[in-house]
């Protein structure tokens, strides 16, 4: 996974609440291998005339600023692949689907949660100055919008570390191998019904 430290790039605003993962990656693309590249599938059925993602004014956007409950619904990680393969490294919203946010972190896509009013103001600025860049500084936990005002955001320290280091979870987990083995032994005695058919 590509590490995420800082990013300065154009941001595109999407004034839509509840953008679900079925919209982000329509179901008919779920059977495509990742090697196919998922970028062209991103929000495929929403690409009607005037859709901000197709507006040349926002060309090269790597940050998406949207509305509440982004990525709700299906657990399909392909929704994240579509954003990442479509060039995005960061999504800003008032709230996210929990599973989407977890999937995003595993693929180097930073999700930033900010208050509803703050995100709405950010979208307004981006609509007024299309193509304006924002700067994300993950170590400092700030997002600087077109008005130059740095906005502080919170992030889980573990998620932050994994993003900055580009860490593979499994390697990290295997450092706890002894604890896992010990847990399994104790558990087998405490809950002998755990394994089906025993």
């Amino acid at each position, binding site marked *: 996974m590509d590490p995420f430290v800082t990013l300065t790039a154009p941001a595109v605003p999407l*004034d*839509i*609440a*509840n953008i*679900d993962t*079925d*919209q982000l990656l*329509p*179901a*008919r693309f*779920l*059977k495509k291998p*990742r090697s196919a590249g998922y970028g062209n599938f991103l929000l495929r*059925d*929403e690409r009607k005339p005037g859709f901000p993602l197709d507006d040349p004014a926002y060309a090269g956007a790597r940050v998406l600023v949207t*509305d*509440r*409950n982004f990525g*709700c*619904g*299906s*657990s*399909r*990680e*392909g929704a*994240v692949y579509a954003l990442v393969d479509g060039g995005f490294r960061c999504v800003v919203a008032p*709230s*996210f*689907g*929990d*599973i989407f946010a*977890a*999937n995003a972190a*595993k*693929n180097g896509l930073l999700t930033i949660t900010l208050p509803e009013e703050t995100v*709405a103001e950010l979208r307004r600025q981006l609509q007024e100055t299309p193509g304006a860049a924002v700067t994300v500084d993950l170590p400092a936990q700030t997002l600087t919008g077109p008005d130059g005002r740095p906005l502080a955001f919170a992030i*889980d*320290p*573990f998620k932050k*570390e994994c993003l900055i280091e580009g860490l593979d*979870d*499994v390697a*990290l*987990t*295997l450092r*706890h191998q002894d*604890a*896992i083995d010990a*847990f*399994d032994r104790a*558990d087998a005695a405490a*809950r*002998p*019904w*755990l*394994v*089906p*058919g*025993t």
Partner: protein
Amino acid sequence: MTSHHRSLFDKVWDAHLVATRPDGQALLAIDRHFLHEGSFHAFGMIDHAKRPVRRPELTFAVADHYVPSHSRAKPIADPEIANMVTMLEANAGRHGLRHFGLHDPAQGIVHVLAPEQGLTLPGLTIVCGDSHTSTHGAFGALAFGIGATEVSHVLATQTLWQRRPRTMRVTVDGELGAHVTAKDLILAVIGFIGADGAAGHVIEYAGSAIRALSMEGRLTVCNMSIEAGARAGMIAPDDTTFSWIEGRTYAPKGELFDRAVEHWRTLPSDPDAAFDREVSLDAAAIAPSVTWGTSPETAVPVTGAVPDPGAESDPVRAGQMRKMLDYMGLTPGTRLEEVGIDRVFIGSCTNARLEDLRAAAAVLRGRRAVVPGLVVPGSVPVRRQAEAEGLDRVFTDAGLEWGEPGCSMCVGINGDLVPAGERCASTTNRNFPGRQGPNARTHLMSPAMAAAAAVTGKLTDVRTLDVRKLGVS
């Protein structure tokens, strides 16, 4: 938090902690891992890293998302869809996993099959690469959906890194009215707290209306926890739970079952357990519900009307409402019972169990559907029992199709799609734009309500039809 003030969630979580990092991240042991055809990304990841499956005996593969609803005598015609089903079989075979394939007598939707086979038990941690894994919380398990990378992590380590979620108790007291079901109850909850109302939380459903639900009803409620944004939904196990489990194929037997029940009885929340949030609903106030928009949070009583964005003070919200109404082809102020439908779908992990099919058949018995429709049972055992009770004949006599078990028209990837522009009365869980097919319009409702809509060709309050009870409980 002391050991005497713990919730059901706290007890299950604490019992599965393998390690905790100073930053609060917890390494959680996973007791059951269910896989479906979408798991090919995750198998690719562990194969690429040359990692074996750590606990094959706790890992189960189920073909459900891509399996055909029509005859299974012939091979699947679409090579890409056939490939999804055979890839799962190959991956399961290579790693020595129990595989419930297309022709298995237990095959079904994973969230119907696992409880039915006794794989889902109280107090377990259960994950699956499917957001509706929350279903299994009906047994007092901590069950939640994960993405492909996390699936690969569980395959390799039988653990998962998680941050302890917050807790929310949703208490529903009182009695549900006639023809008001578990589906109406959960739609009312989502309408009340919103599609992200429980984000970051695990919900515990409590109260007399929840206790009175059958296991089928509890599964429906927990299934849609994710539509309120919840990480998981849980219901305390009780005698209803234990009698459902006893005797099922993979459930513990004899003395082991007794020991398990003894342990399971310790799981319900302590009387003084604290929750981060509390929400209460009056069961008697819940009406048969339908959704009008493209989010489950647009659930309203069927007796109401299409809302007016003009009455919304926030211009962004009003714009979003207009967008939903435009997609749904609805005019503000229209009475919902005046909205005509083009087809019905009765099925999915939300509503394809025996109780659901009985409720739909009770409405359809002796009647004709005026629109086409498809009824897809949740599993082969459900299908067989429904046929033994003659329910399949009730559906086919009414003019509806009777399908083979799977996810079918809920997720629209096995070829069953609602045609563009058509309006579907659906017992599923999501009315998202394009969910049942590009430009398909979905109204969520209970099986009885979908059956009523099939009979009248409009959204219909099932209570206005004379519904004769079937001679079954």
